[in-house]
């Protein structure tokens, strides 16, 4: 059945081949085509992940039950390719304007997405670990990309040291679970033995620390604002969306595969629920006090992690809601970070002051940014509202009503700092305004597509959700949840 296995992972193989090709082209100095080839790689991966063949639409296991393919796994593969693709739209222009011609980044971006796809499709803790590290090591380099820029260095160092520290906890947790359950594979773990050995709680706790760090949940969030504000802006958007989406989906699969069979699952779900609440409150409260737009979005991404964590408490339905949430979040946050990058001058941080009046001077730019910010705030009729609706409804179905209500309150309070940016853009003026001077057309195209998708998803959710159910055989989950 080896051939069958290879057919199942064709999207990943295609992306790996693209990455290798990019490295070769860079080595032979054929550099102008690199963004184009990376883009073809991402689009090709997404197309190959579509259920083109008979029987590929149902989720199944390949490679001796090590990874998921088809069904939800295909949807996740498409999500992650899309996050890479849209990062690409903003990247080449940003690097050109910063006068830092760096060409390794395209191969890195592709390999980071390979790691994410492995991470999010893993049915075995070994694959989870390898995917997580493939992704993280690429992200450390991305954070420290501008090697003569002290801020970028510092962001890279912080991300690297804390990330490696969290990896230590994560892999220790895997080792303990392996010792207790006798296997690293979710399909062949012996949960009775795991509980009896007393390694369940230590192992679970350590793995939770690893995951909570990667998704920047409350007690492990401290690296997020520093890393995002020091990293090149479009790549910060990539870190906030793709890597979080992959980590969240792996986290959700881990919880869904292990917790139903153990006795203490109620307690663990409650712990995650409390962490979710603290993350929402902390992210939203601190984001209000930020002057720098990148730091504001970093804290907002912490708050969004809280909403997704709340969904993860809600079992399989919550996992679906989390996937949908991350899909929409990817579209809107890459757009928001990308637009901040478009208005960023050389070696200068994006400050809220400079953005005053930008919407009046450049109405299209202001309108598009408003769409992203309103969507992040969760205001209907934009897609951000639909994704929040799915998350809170799944939490209510799982009897986490109080948490859902508190989450909705924090979400409403959080709308304040998004709307403040819009108010600054349209109703205030400043002495030192920033200008949007893109060097090519791609960022504009990217912003246009993302804004249009957010509007369409928000206005006609049912059309999209029924397609999702139909294409990926998701037991009509999205259709039923759509209002």
């Amino acid at each position, binding site marked *: 059945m080896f051939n069958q296995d290879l057919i199942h992972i064709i999207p990943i193989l295609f992306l790996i081949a693209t990455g290798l090709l990019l490295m070769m082209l860079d080595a032979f100095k054929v550099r102008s085509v690199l963004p184009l080839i990376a883009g073809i790689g991402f689009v090709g991966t997404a197309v190959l992940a579509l259920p083109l063949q008979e029987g590929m639409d149902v989720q199944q296991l390949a490679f001796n039950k090590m990874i998921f393919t088809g069904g939800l796994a295909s949807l996740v593969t498409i999500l992650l390719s899309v996050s890479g693709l849209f990062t690409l739209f903003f990247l080449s222009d940003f690097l050109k304007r910063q006068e830092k011609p760096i060409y390794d980044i395209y191969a890195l971006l592709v390999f980071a997405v390979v790691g994410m796809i492995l991470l999010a499709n893993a049915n075995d803790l070994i694959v989870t670990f390898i995917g997580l590290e493939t992704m993280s090591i690429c992200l450390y380099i991305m954070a420290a990309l501008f090697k003569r820029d002290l801020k970028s260095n510092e962001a890279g160092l912080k991300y690297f040291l804390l990330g490696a*520290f969290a990896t230590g906890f994560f892999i220790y947790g895997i080792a303990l679970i392996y010792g207790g359950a006798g296997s690293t594979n979710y399909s062949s773990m012996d949960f009775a033995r795991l509980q009896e050995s007393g390694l369940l709680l230590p192992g679970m706790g350590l793995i939770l620390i690893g995951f909570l760090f990667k998704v920047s949940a409350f007690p492990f969030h401290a690296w997020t604002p520093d890393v995002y504000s020091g990293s090149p802006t479009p790549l910060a958007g990539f870190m906030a969306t793709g890597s979080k989406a992959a980590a969240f989906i792996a986290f959700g699969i881990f919880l869904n595969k292990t917790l139903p069979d153990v006795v203490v699952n109620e307690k663990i779900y409650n712990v995650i629920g409390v962490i979710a609440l603290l993350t929402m409150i902390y992210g939203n409260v601190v984001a209000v006090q930020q002057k720098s737009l990148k730091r504001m979005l970093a804290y907002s991404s912490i708050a969004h992690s809280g909403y997704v964590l709340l969904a993860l408490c809600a079992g399989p339905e919550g996992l679906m809601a989390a996937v949908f949430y991350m899909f929409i979040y990817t579209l809107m946050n890459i757009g928001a970070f990308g637009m901040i990058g478009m208005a960023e001058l050389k070696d200068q941080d994006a400050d809220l002051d400079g953005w005053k009046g930008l919407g009046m001077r450049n109405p299209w730019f202001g309108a598009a940014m408003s769409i992203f910010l309103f969507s992040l705030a969760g205001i209907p009729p934009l897609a951000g509202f639909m994704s929040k609706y799915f998350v809170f409804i799944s939490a209510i179905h799982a009897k986490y009503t109080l948490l859902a209500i508190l989450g909705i309150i924090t979400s409403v309070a959080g709308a304040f700092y998004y709307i403040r940016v819009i108010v600054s853009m349209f109703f205030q003026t400043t002495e030192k305004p920033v200008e949007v001077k893109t060097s090519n057309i791609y960022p504009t195209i990217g912003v246009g597509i993302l804004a249009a998708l957010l509007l369409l998803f928000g206005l006609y959710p049912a059309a999209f959700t029924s397609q999702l159910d139909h294409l990926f055989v998701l037991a009509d989950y999205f259709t039923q949840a759509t209002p």
Partner: protein
Amino acid sequence: MEIFEPNLYLYLSVSAVMFAIGTLGVLTRRNAIVIFMCVELMLNAVNLTLVTFSRFLDDAAGSMLVFFVMCVAAAEAVVGLAIIIALFRNKRDIDVNNFNLFKW
């Protein structure tokens, strides 16, 4: 029911102590390279746990994971030392307390 042999606990304790030493090192030391070495110590402690379980469970998956952990540790060392060198060139300092460009 006795799941594990008594001997197992000796190996596990050694690795747990190593892991704790590594963790404490990361939390208390301020030199970026020493912190990184402490992280490596944590990963090696995990490797010891993994080979112990692999031996006592009579299962090869644990030993195989050890190789992956080593690979990851090597890849992390490459990237980490490169970042630390880039930082040292710009600042002539690798004390993590002095890296405080970002304030909230």
